């Protein structure tokens, strides 16, 4: 199978996404996340190139600026401020979850064949596979990591997966929507980061699996 450039980039993004699963070191996670988002921005730019859609360039730039640069920078600052560098542990050991992520990449391919309406549309299959895989990586990240910051990263990865899906399957949504989404994600991360400080202050840790006071 010969991959298009943008497909190759998408797969690269998926692989970076899986690599995030491989370590509990938070700053490494963030670096991988940055690379992963950069790849997605590149996909966007390449598709803009194909479709000659000028607004996609803008989106690519914004994605790169906000998601690959501002957000990781902000989260890095948070990590520094609260002084917790590694995740306190995972429910599934990090390497294992990375392997699981890799397996899910395969599954994603199978699923993307199943999506109704996309069947028989070969040019989108790799893109949706990558997007699905990223989605799964994010889900795994959220489900297996204890640190609050990992959950934020997990959410971001899921969001990236959906974004990649949108870009590859529909060649980008309307500009206003894309920009709104970006802004929204940014604010969400900010709010979550502020809460993170408070969690650290109140509980002296950021292990969300210990937040189980509220139940029936």
């Amino acid at each position, binding site marked *: 199978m010969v991959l298009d450039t943008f497909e190759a980039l998408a797969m690269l993004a998926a692989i970076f996404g899986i690599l995030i699963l491989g370590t509990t070191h938070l700053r490494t996670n963030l670096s991988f996340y940055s690379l992963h988002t950069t790849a997605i921005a590149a996909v966007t730019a390449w598709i803009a190139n194909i479709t000659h859609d000028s607004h996609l360039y803008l989106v690519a730039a914004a994605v790169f600026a906000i998601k690959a640069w501002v957000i990781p920078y902000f989260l890095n600052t948070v990590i520094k401020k609260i002084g917790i560098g590694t995740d306190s542990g995972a429910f599934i050991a990090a390497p294992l979850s990375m392997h699981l992520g890799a397996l899910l990449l395969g599954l994603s391919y199978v699923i993307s064949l199943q999506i109704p309406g996309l069947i028989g549309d070969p040019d989108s299959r790799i893109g949706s596979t990558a997007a699905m895989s990223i989605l799964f990586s994010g889900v795994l990240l959220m*489900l297996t990591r204890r640190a609050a910051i990992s959950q934020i990263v997990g959410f971001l990865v899921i969001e990236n997966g959906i974004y990649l899906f949108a870009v590859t399957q529909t060649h980008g949504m309307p500009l206003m929507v894309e920009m709104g989404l970006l802004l929204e994600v940014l604010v969400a991360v900010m709010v979550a980061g502020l809460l993170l400080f408070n969690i650290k202050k109140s509980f002296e840790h950021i292990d969300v*699996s210990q*937040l189980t006071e509220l*139940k029936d």
Partner: protein
Amino acid sequence: MFNDLTQISAAHLFTAASALWLAGIGLTALGRERVKDILLAAVLLVGCLMALSGAAISWNHPVEYNQLQFLSFGLAQADARVDPLSVPFIALLGLLGAAAAVASPSHLAAFKEQGKKGHYWKLTFIFMIGLLQVLLAANAVAFLVFWEIMSLSSAALVAADHIRHRAQRAAFAYLTATRISTAFITAAFLFMHQNTGSWSLAAWHFDTPESLCAAVLLLAGVCTKAGIWPMHVWLPLAYPEPPAPTSALFSGLVSNLAIYLLMRLLLAGSCSHMIIAYVALALGTVSAVWGVLFALMERDLKKLLAYSSVENMGIILTAIGVAILAHSHGLADVAALATAGALFHSLNHGLVKALLFLGASSVERAAHTREMSALGGLSKNLPWTMLCFFVGSLSICAMPPMNCFASKWLLYQTFFHLSFAHVPIMERAIALAMVGILAFVGALSLACFTKAVGIAFLGRPRSEAAAKAKESPSGNPDGLILAQLLLTVACVMVGTSVPIALDGLTPALQQLTNNPALVGSSLFPMPLGQLTLVGALLVSSIYIFVLGGRSATAKSYITWDCGFGPLSTRAEETGSSFSHPIGRIFSQVLQMKVSTEISGKDRRHFPEIVKVETFMTPILETKIYQPLINAFDWLSSSLVRLQTGSIHIHLLYVFLTMILLVFLDTNI
């Protein structure tokens, strides 16, 4: 012309009564003196009199009116109508309401807090409005609305003495039962609406195959509300709890309205489902026997009365069952008898049970207890209460010439006539067996009420409180006694003029049986009034000529004590020992066990302390309801365990649901 006039005025009277009561709620906020109680009682009374006169005017003239149509409950407006079936119940409501109004001020005089009085009045007025409008509702939605208003306000009245845990529990049990009943009835209404496309109660007929489902649901709902076995467990808890005046309304009307609904829909709607008839017969029979058996074993005076309601509701239900049966067989005479029996008995029972509850409340007020083992000898201190309770007991045991005798007689005749009608032999066998069962139930209820009167009022006082009891705080008969007397007179009057009463019910019976030739009094050919007269003459002449002349010379002495000297009152028969022989016979049903504990050095010959205790395990509660509650509890707690508090698990739910829904979506 005259007809129009009566229609308008009857409708106006009912609306005005409701409006007056509504205004009464507002009046509770004004003034703070005792005058207010009398004013509010007057409001209640005037409303009741309006309802009574409205019923009298519209007795023979069905009225449909739209004065309440500014109220709209979403699916339908508050259409109202008065038809022959609702009129007798409205009359009962007016009478019992008047009794409650008369009893209220003296009941409230004992209250210290103003707030409680306010609650009492507000809830009573709402309750009354609910009761009246349920009877006037012409469509199912309005019916449901007022039905719930009535149920909820009466539940709040049950909780009137809410400081006590018992009242809270009772209110909760009642609320649960009434909500379950409403759920069933709602489902039945939905089905009927689906079948007929109309909410009007008059448009519903239960003679099509698809109406079976609705009929079953309706029966279930009515059984729950009327306290039919096995859904009666709430009844002995709830009936004793409301304040004295409202307990009369509660016991006399709440269950009766369920029966009213059943008659309105199934009888007037010409139900032709045999299965309904059989189920009604079976459930009615079981609850008649069960109710009276438990009533007999009961130690609490008001609970005894409550269980007796279970019995009577059961009997009425059997009659309705037979009416359906006879209707589908085309037996006009049996159907007429059964319908008349059911209708007349539910009215009579309402009247009598209200009277008895007022009497029991009077006892409770005087002796501060309802435990029969702590009562006794009240006939001296509470002569009026005693008289009224005695008459009520006579009536509820269906002793001639009381009103319940006539209705019970109609029921006997129903089964008797069915036993030689042209129906399958099984049904005839059931009919004859039912005659025996009715006799059995009658004998049990005689045992039950001789116990109630004999243990509570006769003999010697078993406690200090009973010995010091006074008819009323002032010692003179007050409103509560007056209310009892009112109902007593009503009972006796109905009992001695049965043909007139039945003639009054003729329009209702015609409506229920769809038989315009039916005349109520023709169903009851016995000259009971004349017999009563003869009996009364005989009794008084024997009393005067044989006994009366000698009372002056009669020597008053203690009760025979076998020469041991004054006996302790503990040697008297108690309620439990009175019913013990019967309890032993039915120990399987009652789960009755007796434990005897004898202690002392030489236990066999010289026992020092003998302790005998009887235990009863309520079989339904422990064997059916407790497991059911446990099951719900288990279900609930396993669901609660889903809420682990771990965010990871919560996220997992989101993902799993997503997978499930996507799977479902792509595969259906």
